[in-house]
């Protein structure tokens, strides 16, 4: 077991990061919002940590907090501006936000030079991106100290989302997804709760981006293009958009599959595209569909029944 973990630690790291990202888009999808800005918020988180650790000696945990805080601070005004828009328009506007983040990361230094005396100052480093210095992780209780924060982060998020799911907040978000007009006539302040979901999702994505920085080490704008956002969307769509278990399943399957089946790695985009299309068409409730679990249980219990009879 321990050997398996240490041999595959990088895959495990990415599975955990991708679970967090899948959960970040899930919370908005569960509210009926197609927000495509998650890759952008992930970039914000990663750049925040990368810039802080290259420009100063502030510890990582503070950088993580700053990344999440920045995610919230940006998501609030953006959410207030765009969440009134209907589905397609919202998707396009949030897609636009992600692109703007990328363009800023690419050209950030030009903007910095406009305001700073020091024309040699390099912060974003354009298309090259920021490279973090490599540090050999120390092993604590069987896991590297880079993995622990991610694991704890995922556990905290799952706790938050599971608690919300079973509370009136989860019910209200589900009611908005299904019929926001009917929800509003029950006294639900629709915009308020959409904002809650959007900010929560953005903060989760920013945190995941921050945690991914020490693992990917090279933070460049190309990591956060639209196709990254589509990867994230695929986790939630395959897993299911109505229960928090969905994105966990989706992210695990889609991250480990290319590792297990080498030939799939070269065709990752085709496989992602196929999975998105096939699951939205033929498996709209995702892998977390209760009917699939019922079928699974029946299949598993089938031999037992035979033995009894």
């Amino acid at each position: 077991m321990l050997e398996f973990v240490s041999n595959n630690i990088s895959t495990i790291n990415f599975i955990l990061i991708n679970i967090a990202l899948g959960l970040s888009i899930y919370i908005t999808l569960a509210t009926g919002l197609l927000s495509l800005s998650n890759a952008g918020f992930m970039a914000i988180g990663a750049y925040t940590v990368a810039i802080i650790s290259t420009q100063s000696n502030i510890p990582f945990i503070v950088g993580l907090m700053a990344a999440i805080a920045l995610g919230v601070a940006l998501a609030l005004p953006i959410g207030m501006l765009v969440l009134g828009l209907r589905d397609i328009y919202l998707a396009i506007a949030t897609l636009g936000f992600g692109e703007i983040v990328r363009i800023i990361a690419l050209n950030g230094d030009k903007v910095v030079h406009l305001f700073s005396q020091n024309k040699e100052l390099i912060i974003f480093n354009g298309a090259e991106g920021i490279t973090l210095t490599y540090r050999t992780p120390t092993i604590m209780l069987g896991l590297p100290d880079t993995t622990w924060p991610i694991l704890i982060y995922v556990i905290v998020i799952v706790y938050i989302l599971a608690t919300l799911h079973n509370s009136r907040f989860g019910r209200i978000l589900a009611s908005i997804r299904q019929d926001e007009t009917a929800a509003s006539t029950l006294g639900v302040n629709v915009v308020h709760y959409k904002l809650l979901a959007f900010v929560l999702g953005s903060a989760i994505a920013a945190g995941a981006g921050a945690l991914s920085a020490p693992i990917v080490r090279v933070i460049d704008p190309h990591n956060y293009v639209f196709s990254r956002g589509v990867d994230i969307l695929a986790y939630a769509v395959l897993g299911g958009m109505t229960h928090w278990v969905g994105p966990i399943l989706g992210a695990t399957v889609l991250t480990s599959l290319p590792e297990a089946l080498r030939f799939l790695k070269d065709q990752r985009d085709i496989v992602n595209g196929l999975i998105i299309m096939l699951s939205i068409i033929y498996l709209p409730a995702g892998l977390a569909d209760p009917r699939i679990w019922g079928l699974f249980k029946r299949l598993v219990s089938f031999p037992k029944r035979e033995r009894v009879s």
Partner: protein
Amino acid sequence: MIPEQPKPLLEIRNVARVFGGLKALENVSFNVPRGAICGLIGPNGAGKTTLINMVSGLGPLSEGAILLDGQLISGLAPHKIAERGVGRTFQNIRLFGDLSVLENVILGHHLRQRGTLIETLLRLPRSRSGERDSRTAALKLLAILGMEHLANVQARALSYGDQRRVEIARALALGPSLLLLDEPAAGMNSTETDGLCEFLLSLRESSLTILIIEHDMDMIMRMSDLVVVLNFGLKIAEGPPDFVRNEPHVIEAYLGSEQ
């Protein structure tokens, strides 16, 4: 104006609604006294649903004003109007199909549920007791409607008549002073309709005011204290059922249409 009712619960004042160039409602005024059941009838396309939508804040008014308990509610957002105590059902049932019957009804109760986001996340006592109270209240409502056994069924799996009743329970969970019902008996058989009638009459005992759109004339005439008749966006009659029944305009409107 009905002189013996000093302060009506709902006042519709000179309300008009224009869609494009088409007048869906024109200068409609009437009052619904507190504790009354008011029937809103008229041929298809008379503007009944448009009016109810305006009361619950789903459509803007082109002219006029709507007052609840003496306070202006037209122009408020739908959730604000719901907070003031207006519950409603829809002509084409709008339950949350993915959720269970119980969850649908609890949603109606959520405004009275305590516990902030932080309290919920930390699972503090207030949020847990709030959840428990809502559950108890919702189960009680379902019990009154004789639907306890369906509490954990997915709403979309219910029969048509049951869905209508769950929608009413959900609106009642809000604890409204005014209940708006848009064709609650549509698709029900006569036994179900009788049961619904009885139930609505029992609600009046608890001083709830009801504004109801219905095509089942029998039901309207049997239940209502007051009937308002719309035709082509205009109010053509108003009064007690017996009066309205014999009003020549009303007979003409109905004979002229499909009924």
